[in-house]
């Protein structure tokens, strides 16, 4: 299972990268893309949208199923990745390079409470 060190993870299978400018980059894990299968549609939130932690703000759909994507922490959406909207299959190719959106967290410390790589690998392994 591909679970890079240095990222944070949610129990709902998002990965989160803390950037130097204080924003958080969010995508879905390799485990999630594999479970979903070939992705064919991605809907991302509007820039400027605020979300509570755990709120559904994006949707990814594979041939098989639709799946909500949640905000890992409370914050405001500051940018989205148009490349994955145009070509959802890129997430299947590399789930960590092809991010979905960037969030400016309401509280900088919240990200610390998310899972680390070892914690997520354990969770995904049991799933």
């Amino acid at each position, binding site marked *: 299972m591909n679970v890079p060190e240095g990222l944070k993870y949610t129990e709902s299978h998002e990965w989160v990268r803390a950037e130097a400018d204080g924003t958080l980059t969010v995508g879905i894990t390799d485990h999630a893309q594999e479970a979903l*299968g070939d992705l064919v549609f991605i809907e991302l939130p509007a820039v400027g949208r605020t979300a509570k932690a755990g709120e559904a703000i994006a949707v990814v*759909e594979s*041939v098989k*199923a639709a799946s909500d994507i949640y905000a890992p922490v409370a914050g405001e959406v500051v940018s989205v990745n148009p490349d994955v909207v145009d070509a959802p299959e890129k997430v299947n190719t590399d789930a960590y390079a092809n991010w979905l959106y960037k969030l400016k967290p309401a509280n900088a410390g919240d990200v610390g409470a998310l899972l680390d790589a070892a914690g997520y690998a354990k969770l995904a392994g049991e799933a």
Partner: protein
Amino acid sequence: MLKQTPLHAAHRAAGARMVDFGGWDMPVNYGSQIEEHHAVRRDAGMFDVSHMLAVDLGGSGARAFLRYALANNVDKITQPGKALYSCLLRPDGGVLDDLIVYFMREDWFRIVVNASTADKDLAWLKSLLAKRAPGLSLLPRRDLAMIAVQGPHAREKLWQALPGSRVATEALKAFFAAESGEFLVARTGYTGEDGFEITLPGLRAVALWDALSAAGVRACGLGARDTLRLEAGMNLYGQDMTEEETPLESGLAWTVDLVAPRDFVGKSALAAAPPTRRQVGLLLLDQGGVLRSHQKVVTANGDGEITSGTFSPTLGKSIALARVPTGVAAGDAVAVQVRNKELSARVVRPPFVRNGVVLVKE
């Protein structure tokens, strides 16, 4: 404990993603469902369909029994090896299952039923036999495996993998089967492409699977099987037809023979209640999601519901089968409720794709 087909270990070894399908541990894909789908449309793919159950009905009077038990008319099949698609109905017209019946000899018909309904079907047929034809035998053939080889190059690749099968099967017409040694090879399928469905002893399944693989046939999972059958406009039992609807409400009027002067289970119920709903195809025109089963369809004649929906790899668009009020016709504009949005779709007549050719216009 999930049931396993004779090819189970081969699927695991090939890295298949497995799912519970009607109580069976089956491959949903071996990597990419979309690539498997394209392999069948463009070249050749194979599916393990051993979870389906072959049942042999034997004895004098088998035809007369099936004439009453099946909604389609078994008198349409009189040449050895000829196959017929039919629904098995409840007395109230609800669909118990859909099946293929092969005429082998007057005292031997082979019936192939769905995996998840097999126990229910057997119990139903046994109760019907006890009342109508207690002398007939009904033998479930769990000793048999089934492999579907589908695609424009499927037939030649089977002959490459199994040279001895060519003589018996080269002249087979669509919807006919022929015996080749221990194998029954039928020119049937569930993909909208040419090909064969091969029934064989379970112990021989791995060897055939490996030989087909060596001949360049791509292993395909149930995921691709679903997108292929939906593009081909074929129903899936449990989604597009259930015990709650009649075949006339599920696009299967062509399989119900109400004309011939024979009685069959469900006939009087079908004759007494003309359908108020019908099955149509939908093509999604808007971006904004994928059509899925249970989404609401808003039409000028009232609301309907999607029974199967997916992203069509061949069209690059989302398609669906839906049950709508009978006034809805091909060409109508409808709206589908996808999450919090209403997306535009057009009513079309299935199939969407046959033999690699897209049949619906944008």
